[in-house]
């Protein structure tokens, strides 16, 4: 009965949203904007969601989520336009799509490739939405059992795993990036004793660093610097005919769709990792299990399907830990967290108690956003492609202006801008030294959670660390964190290499 009630609630919410003209206009408008944002190289879904967060400040929470999710879904999908038509991915999530998408366009199958990405993205988003609907309430009810010990370890685990999986170079760089983020979150008066930390007497820092200007600075400024400094130029886009849903090709590759969707949701649920990792892992897996792996990279439909299904399924996966634990599963989800806080919605285990209808509403909005993306993608592809002709050096200054006015508008403090620029430059310097930025952002967001819960936990246990070993979930998290750290040590690597040599050789088959 409870399940039937939830299903009824979901469909009723979808109906209410779909029959509200204002909501539908906002949804389609933000989805189209998201597709354009995603298509333009140098602009990311994270930046799009961050810039729109400011604009949604004055509207009600439901409409704000419609706008932001429309932008998120549209931008993740829109990245495939650049990948397929000019071999320059619009977003990092679409980087893997270029490997097979562009060769397809060169063969004259650009329209087919776009049709496949549109349908795959639609299916991926719907699968993500399905998992959000099923697992979010379960995770939320489990999280209600958590105490300060578990929350501290969860925050720490989020930073460690994000640093471990997003680093291009050594994993220590990802962890250092996460620790720098944690350090930045400590600036201001602490939430337990209100003692100022690292404020240097500057009263504007008493409240700490505001999340949205920090996120806009960390993601926007490095992107602008990189595009302008590297003189990114977009060549002539490949022409294409009509964009059709290509259901026949999709059904012939149903196994790839299912596998990629599951990979996308699974990776989305891991804190801070994001759509780009999901796409690459899915592509790699599809290539590995394919009967003809040598054809990958020359224009196979499977390659495009694997990437686009996974990166859109990741959206639903990333929202699960965001809503239930307050831990964003991807950088755009981190921006969504900022937006939720602005609208006085505190994500976490208490969300289902304080706002019982919220998870259902988000699921319904995600469902409608996927339909909006599907329709806009099929109908407006030829028009959206025209934006690829705009030189990056013309639209990047406008993006800078939007970053500045967006950061200022939240709080109406010029000081936010003073902070945004150095954080942006720091993020750029870190990126150029191959330090990933996602863990820094996760650190800034989870820092207060880690700090408060650690001290609260120690106050409860009177300084004893024993409860970390006595509580089962805390012990599992502690074990995983220690294993993550130990697995990077030379001793462990030598041990696993020895094991592979001993048990992996043909003598033992």
């Amino acid at each position, binding site marked *: 009965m409870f399940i039937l009630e939830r299903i009824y609630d979901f469909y009723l919410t979808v109906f209410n949203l779909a029959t509200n003209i204002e909501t539908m206009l906002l949804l389609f408008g933000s989805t189209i904007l998201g597709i354009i944002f995603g298509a333009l190289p140098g602009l990311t879904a994270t930046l799009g969601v961050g810039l729109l967060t400011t604009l949604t400040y004055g509207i009600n929470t439901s409409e704000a989520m419609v706008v932001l999710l429309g932008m998120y879904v549209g931008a993740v999908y829109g990245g495939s336009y650049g990948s397929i038509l000019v071999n320059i991915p619009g977003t990092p999530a679409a980087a893997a799509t270029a490997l097979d998408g562009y060769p397809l366009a060169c063969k004259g199958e650009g329209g087919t490739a776009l049709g496949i990405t549109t349908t795959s993205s639609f299916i991926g988003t719907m699968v993500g939405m399905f998992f959000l609907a099923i697992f979010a309430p379960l995770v939320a009810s489990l999280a209600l059992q958590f105490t300060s010990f578990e929350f501290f370890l969860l925050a720490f685990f989020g930073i460690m795993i994000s640093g471990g999986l997003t680093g291009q170079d050594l994993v220590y760089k990802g962890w250092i990036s996460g620790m720098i983020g944690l350090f930045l979150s400590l600036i201001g008066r602490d939430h337990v004793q209100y003692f100022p930390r690292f404020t240097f007497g500057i009263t504007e820092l008493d409240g700490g660093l505001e999340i949205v200007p920090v996120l806009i600075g960390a993601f926007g400024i490095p992107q602008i610097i990189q595009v302008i400094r590297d003189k990114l130029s977009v060549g002539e886009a490949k022409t294409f005919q009509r964009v059709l849903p290509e259901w026949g090709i999709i059904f012939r590759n149903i196994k790839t769709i299912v596998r990629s969707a599951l990979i996308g949701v699974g990776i989305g649920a891991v804190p801070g990792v994001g759509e780009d990792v999901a796409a690459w892992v899915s592509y790699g897996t599809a290539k590995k299990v394919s009967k003809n792996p040598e054809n990958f990279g020359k224009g196979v439909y499977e390659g495009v399907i694997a990437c686009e299904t996974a990166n859109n399924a990741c959206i639903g996966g990333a929202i699960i830990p965001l809503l239930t634990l307050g831990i964003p599963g991807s950088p755009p989800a981190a921006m969504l967290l900022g937006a939720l806080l602005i609208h006085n919605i505190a994500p976490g285990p208490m969300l289902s108690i304080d706002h019982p209808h919220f998870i259902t509403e988000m699921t319904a909005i995600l469902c409608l956003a996927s339909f909006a993306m599907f329709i806009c993608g099929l109908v407006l592809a030829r028009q959206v492609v025209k934006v690829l002709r705009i030189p990056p050096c013309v639209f990047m*200054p406008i993006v800078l202006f939007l970053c500045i006015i967006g950061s200022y508008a939240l709080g109406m403090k010029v000081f936010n801008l003073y902070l945004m620029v150095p954080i942006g430059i720091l993020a750029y310097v870190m990126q150029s030294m191959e330090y990933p930025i996602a863990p820094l952002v996760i650190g800034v967001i989870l820092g207060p959670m880690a700090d408060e819960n650690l001290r609260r936990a120690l106050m409860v246990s009177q300084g004893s660390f024993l409860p970390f070993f006595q509580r089962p979930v805390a012990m599992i998290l502690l074990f995983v964190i220690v294993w993550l750290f130990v697995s990077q040590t030379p001793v462990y690597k030598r041990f696993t290499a020895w094991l592979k040599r001993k048990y992996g050789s043909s003598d033992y088959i």
Partner: protein
Amino acid sequence: MNVWFVSSGLMPVFIGGLITIMGIILCHRSIKDGGASQFFQDFSLRKQDSSGEKLRLFALLLVICSYVYLFTPRIDFFLGTILCQVVFISFFYFDRQDLLKKLSIFYLIGCLLFLGLFMMKADKQLNKYSPYFMDVLVLIFFIAYIVYCRVLVRGDGILKKKLKITVITSIVPPLLIISSFKYLLLIPLPVEGAFIDVMNILRYAFH
């Protein structure tokens, strides 16, 4: 209760310790990989690289920093925005190293002059004569910059067209976005000077 676990410094010590440990591991790894000699070799290779990238980076940082730290807190927001937009776009849209160098020197000199005025608090004195004195000075600088661009690109049809696009793109989008923020979202702008006051007059004249 004065015990270690309620201290505000607990988390900073913990994080500082972790950063130190990981920094030491990273340092050890970098010494194994090549050490200081590799670092100096890379550094000298980078110095030999063409200065084109460095100039672009310098010009970009000049625009961003002047926009945020120099003009936004003191000058009419719309005027400061269109000035920085026209500078930013013209720097990179013309796609010529020699023009970038000349324009960035011109802009840098202008910024230094304004910085001098602001540091001597001359802007407050000048604004006593007229509340829009500094805005007028910046407007003159804006016009001078466009005239200088015009002089630099004369004889080149493609660059003249690019200059036209630059000026239009610098004025129209900020006008639309600032108007939306001011009149639709009702967000007061950082500094509302001459241009914003004119916008207010036009907006409310027909209300």
